[in-house]
């Protein structure tokens, strides 16, 4: 875990340290185990629904990408920060073994209800740069003061 980020350190337009991950089938099976979502769409290449959906390979769980955005935001908040809210929309599919880059940027800082809040745009994007999973997050950071 990187050093704790403080509210005073943050500037609008600041980019978050990205996470890159290329989930293989083993990773997706572990995610099935962790999340309880055992939909064969994500690990069985013979699953009939794949063909019905016009797909030639398994697809990455949307919630896996959501969780990667969660990792990004959690790392930004640090152990002393608190993630208040984070959400994404699933706009495109990602395939196993293809690199997914999870990124974010600070869109606003504000103080509200005694908290130092930072608003973020967050996303997961595929190798072609398409944001398959865009979203937003709000994090409360500690203050140095």
């Amino acid at each position, binding site marked *: 875990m990187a050093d704790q980020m403080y509210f005073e350190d943050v500037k609008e337009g600041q980019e978050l340290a990205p996470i890159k991950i290329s989930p293989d089938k083993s990773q997706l099976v572990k995610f099935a185990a*962790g*999340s309880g979502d055992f*939909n064969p769409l994500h690990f069985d290449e013979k699953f009939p629904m794949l063909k019905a959906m016009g797909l030639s390979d398994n697809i990455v769980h949307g919630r896996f990408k959501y969780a990667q955005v*969660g990792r990004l935001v959690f*790392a930004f908040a640090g152990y002393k920060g608190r993630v*208040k809210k984070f959400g*994404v929309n699933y706009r495109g599919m990602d395939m196993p073994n293809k690199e997914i880059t999870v990124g974010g940027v600070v869109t606003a800082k504000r103080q509200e209800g005694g908290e130092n809040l930072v608003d973020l745009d967050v996303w997961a994007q595929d190798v072609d740069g398409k944001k398959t999973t865009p979203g937003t997050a709000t994090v409360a950071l500690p203050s140095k003061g």
Partner: protein
Amino acid sequence: MADEFEITDEMRAQFGVDGTPWTYEVTTTSVRMYARGIGSDDPIHYDVDFAKSQGFRSIVAPLGYIGTPVFLPGKNDPTFGFPRREGGPRLNIPFKGLLDGGTETEYLDVICAGDVLEETSHLADLKLRDGPRGKMLFVTNEAVYTDKATGKVVAKQKLTSIHM
């Protein structure tokens, strides 16, 4: 038929009507398994002593994980594990296609191993839009998670599915 589908007042009347509550458990082994599943190596999700040294009750649930529903054979979905509970909204949706539209979680507290949560879920929103292949129905359900020990709401999660 799907093309003639309209959102009715009867459907809107189901907004906010909770289904039967269900218990979700957050355990050390379940937190670690989820953390492994997302590829995290942050000790805050694995090492109880370390998490306590950082001021947490126990290892911290990774964002996006709000516990595992109690699984009872015949009462939970065998693929997804979620409870097939009685009560709650029942929509008669004529669309065949289904996509996961989005997930949004609001946290009111940090969720840690050892937490036992009561989850209630209700229909929060319906939206009908025209897509390239006809009508698309956006169904948003909201789940509210309450810590059974303290009675406090710790998280709210909105799940949107797209029917088309």
